[in-house]
Structure formats: C-alpha cells, structure tokens
C-alpha cells in the first residue's frame, strides 16, 4: 500500500468519523423542532391521507383558493413569492394528512384573517357581496320592464289620441246641424251617396247619416 492510498483511506475514515455522528444527530434534532401543529389549530383531519397525483391536484386546487399575502392579487398557487411557496408547501402537508379544503382554509384564516380567502365565504356581511349583484340585477330588470311598459303605454295613448284628433275622410263635427251640411257637401263634391266614403261603406256595411 502506497503512502498516498493510505492517506486517502485515513482521510475517508476521518470524514466518516465526523459525518456519522452528524447524520445521527440531524434527524434527532429535526424531531425536536416542531412547527405549530395543525391539530392544535383545526383539530383532527376530516378525510383520509392523500398521496401522488391526487395530492398534487388537491394541493393546487386548495392553494388557488388562498390569497398570497405579499402579492394580494395572486393566489398562493400562482404566486412565485417565497411566502406563497411556503404556504403552498403547508397546504400540501395539510392535504397529505387528510385535512379537508375547509379545514385548510380555516387553518390559514385563523392566522391571517378572512382576507386570506380569495372568495369571501357566504356568511354574515359577506352575503351582501354575493347577494347584492343578483339583487341589483333583479331590481334593475324590474325597473327597466316598468319603464319600458310605461313608455309603450304613453306612446300608444298619444298616438291614439293623435289619430283621434286628426280629421279623416268620414270625420264629422259634433254639431249635428253642421254634420248634415258636411255630408251633403261630400255627396255633391265627390258623388258619394249620402256623403259617406266608399271605404267606410265597405267596412261597416251600412250608411252613416
């Protein structure tokens, strides 16, 4: 054995001597380090643990319902911010343990407030956010129908009264004496028997006198 290979073996041995206790120490250390337990915040998981593709899908879905607190306009699923990535990792851990969507959302809501939910939950004052657009749409629709009907009625009435006001071929004055002269004039001028227009005679089938 050359002195060089002996040195190399000694070096590897020395490295192993130092590395082994470190490797043994590392897991023991991480066991002691405990992030706040989700159980303490939202209780026991509601569903079965998830793994694989299902876990990734559910993680992305739940993370897309959470607002990234440092970017505000983006969901935790879409944001590249470290804070959002940490949160997404936490979502994955929660979902993997079997925590439901609602439990995961409550976990973050308890720390960040309702603001962390991208969709405000349907409760309390939030009903206004969900209900107001529908209510306004209905009220607006009723209002538009009401206004349009009133406008239609007004147009119909005004056109009817306008038609009534316009003198036609067979319009007669209210004064009976005068009406008699008008009919006589029409008879003489147009040759209509009795002063009644042929159209009126056809439609009504009788002679106005």
């Amino acid at each position, binding site marked *: 054995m050359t002195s060089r290979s002996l040195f190399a073996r000694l070096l590897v041995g020395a490295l192993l001597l130092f590395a082994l206790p470190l490797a043994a120490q590392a897991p023991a250390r991480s066991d002691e380090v405990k992030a*706040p337990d989700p159980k303490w*915040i939202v209780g026991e998981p509601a569903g079965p643990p998830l793994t694989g593709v299902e876990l990734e899908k559910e993680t992305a879905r739940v993370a897309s319902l959470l607002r990234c607190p440092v970017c505000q306009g983006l969901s935790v699923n879409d944001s590249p911010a*470290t804070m959002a990535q940490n*949160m997404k*990792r*936490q979502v994955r851990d929660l979902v993997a343990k079997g925590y439901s969507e609602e439990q995961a959302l409550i976990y973050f809501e308890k720390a960040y407030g309702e603001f962390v939910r991208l969709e405000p939950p349907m409760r309390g004052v939030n009903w206004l956010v969900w209900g107001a657009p529908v209510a306004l749409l209905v009220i607006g629709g009723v209002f538009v129908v009401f206004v349009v009907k009133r406008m239609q009625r007004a147009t119909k009435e005004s056109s009817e009264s306008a038609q009534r006001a316009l003198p036609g071929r067979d319009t007669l004055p209210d004064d009976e004496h005068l009406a008699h002269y008008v009919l006589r004039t029409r008879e003489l001028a147009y040759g209509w028997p009795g002063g009644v227009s042929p159209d009126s005679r056809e439609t009504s089938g009788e002679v106005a006198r």
Partner: protein
Amino acid sequence: MPHRRVVERPSLNRKVLIAGLVVVVPFIVLLVMNLGRDPRKVDSPLIGKQAPPFSLRQVGTPAVVDLAALRGKPVVLNFWATWCVPCYAEHPVLVAAGRQYEGKVQFVGVVFDDQEDKIAQFLRENGTSYPTLFDESGKTAIAFGVYGVPETFFIDANGKIVDKYVGPLDPATIEAKLRLAGAFR
C-alpha cells in the same frame, strides 16, 4: 292635458334623486370612514388568542427553544430576516431592550426565508442579547400569520398574544406594548 305633465316631472326627479342617493351615500360614508386607514394594515385575528405552540432550533447551536417553556413572563417574538433593511435598524433597538428588560421579559427572534450561516454571521457582526431561532420551513411564520418582516408579537406571561406590531420597533413602542403584555405589573 299639459298642466298634468308639469306636476309629474318634479315627483319623478325626486324619485331618481333618492335612488341615486341610496346608491351613492353608502359609498361616500365608507370612503370618509376609511380615509385615515392604512390599507396595508390588516388586524391580526390572533390578538387575544393563545400563541400557536412551536419549538425551533437556536441559530448556530443544537439547542431547541420551546415557546411553551417561556411561560411565566412576557415574550417579545420578533420575526425578521437578514435581507430585510428595516430589520437592520431595528436590531440594535431590540438588543438594547433585551438587555434593559432582562429577567422581566424574554425576547426571541425568529428568522424565516433565510440561510442559517447568513443569520449566524449577522448575529456575530451585530451582537445579540437574546436567542434567535431558525424557522427553516416558514411554518411558524405562517401559523402566526406573518406577512413580511419585521413583525413583532407581544405575548403575555400566560402565552396569550396581546398585540402585534408591523415594521421596525422603537424603544417607546416596545415599552408601551410591554405594558399591555403586563411586564410592569
């Protein structure tokens, strides 16, 4: 009849005016009410609640500090990072306060979104008077609803969060918040 129209018009206008006011006035009231409010400030829902329990390793040592073990005196839990500029200004204030209230109040630093060697170097260069813990996963920061750094939680002797402060602290604010946490009783 023309005179009827003259009567109808003002009544229709009044209706439109009232409808307009019903829509606009609440918005104006909301706007005026919130004019002086800082839009970035969101009150922590954790205030008045028990602090989430955690145990984290102290930077540069194998020692683990458990928050529950610190019960008995108020705790100042300061979240910070070495890349955060305001934290540089805040650090000497906290170190001085840690010395000033030694024995009465426990100051604890928690660093997340950072590298341990950088934190150790920062502490070597700038000194410290209290333990600094490393939240490698960032989960403790999440459980405390931390948005950014620096953010500081004031916890009373029973482990209840009494207040949260966003931004760099000054000695007067620390004193006022410690009073809330019952440090001078």
